[in-house]
């Protein structure tokens, strides 16, 4: 899917084998408001950063992921599942992150969740399994000015 659409809920969707040569393979977030993703599958998506979900410096208030499955996503640089750079709050509950990986370059960081300057974060009752990375494979958390 391409172009801008305003939504705040995504439920029971599957995003499979989507490829981007830039940021955001399946979803690129750039609109204000809250977004809740529930019971979705992100599998085998590929991008430079944020192969499943990419978010950077927008007015998004809160990103909520519930019961969502991230499987075999691949990033060229950072965040095969999520790339979050900005001030949004994030809640992840009962979600699974399995077999995600990034390009094995020592300059790449955060194979599953790449978080830079985020707001409040809650990650609860979630599983991270067999992911491969360089530094901070499952969660890479950074604050930069």
């Amino acid at each position, binding site marked *: 899917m391409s172009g801008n659409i305003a939504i705040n809920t995504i439920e029971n969707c599957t995003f499979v084998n989507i490829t981007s040569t830039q940021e955001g393979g399946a979803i690129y977030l750039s609109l204000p408001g809250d977004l809740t993703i529930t019971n979705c599958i992100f599998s085998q998506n590929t991008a430079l950063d944020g192969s499943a979900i990419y978010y950077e410096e927008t007015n998004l208030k809160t990103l909520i992921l519930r019961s969502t499955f991230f499987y075999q996503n691949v990033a060229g640089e950072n965040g095969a599942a999520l790339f979050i750079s900005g001030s949004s709050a994030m809640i992840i509950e009962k979600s699974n992150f399995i077999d995600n990986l990034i390009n*094995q370059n*020592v300059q790449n*960081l*955060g194979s599953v969740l790449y978080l830079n300057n*985020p*707001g*409040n*974060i*809650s*990650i*609860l*009752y*979630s*599983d*991270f*399994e*067999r*992911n*491969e*990375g*360089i*530094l*901070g*494979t*499952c*969660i*890479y*958390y*950074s*604050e*930069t000015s």
Partner: protein
Amino acid sequence: MLGDNVVMNLTNNNFKNNSAFIGGAGIYFNNKLLSESPYQQNNFIDNKASFANDFLTFPMRLKITDSTYLRSLSSLTDKTYSLSIVPGITETSLYFDVVDYYGQTVKSLNGGFVFLIILFY
């Protein structure tokens, strides 16, 4: 600690069989920290890395690893340390590990320690 106004809550998560080429197959904190160890509220099982298998922070302290000198050091009241040196010696060294917030040794791909050469003239 973690950001001035930022709250991170990591609770009841499982980190299993993840791998990192360098360090922190579970979590890496750059700049900011959790106030308590991630071990307190989460499960880490069979994660693999060159060092710090489960989680890692940025390097932040030096830890003396030379046991001989470690025994000879004694803390003084002005926050300096005394070091016993054998009379006549012209050169000695102190070895340190670089450790993260949780006391885990931090290395580079080439290894990782710091040493201080002390010359006596």
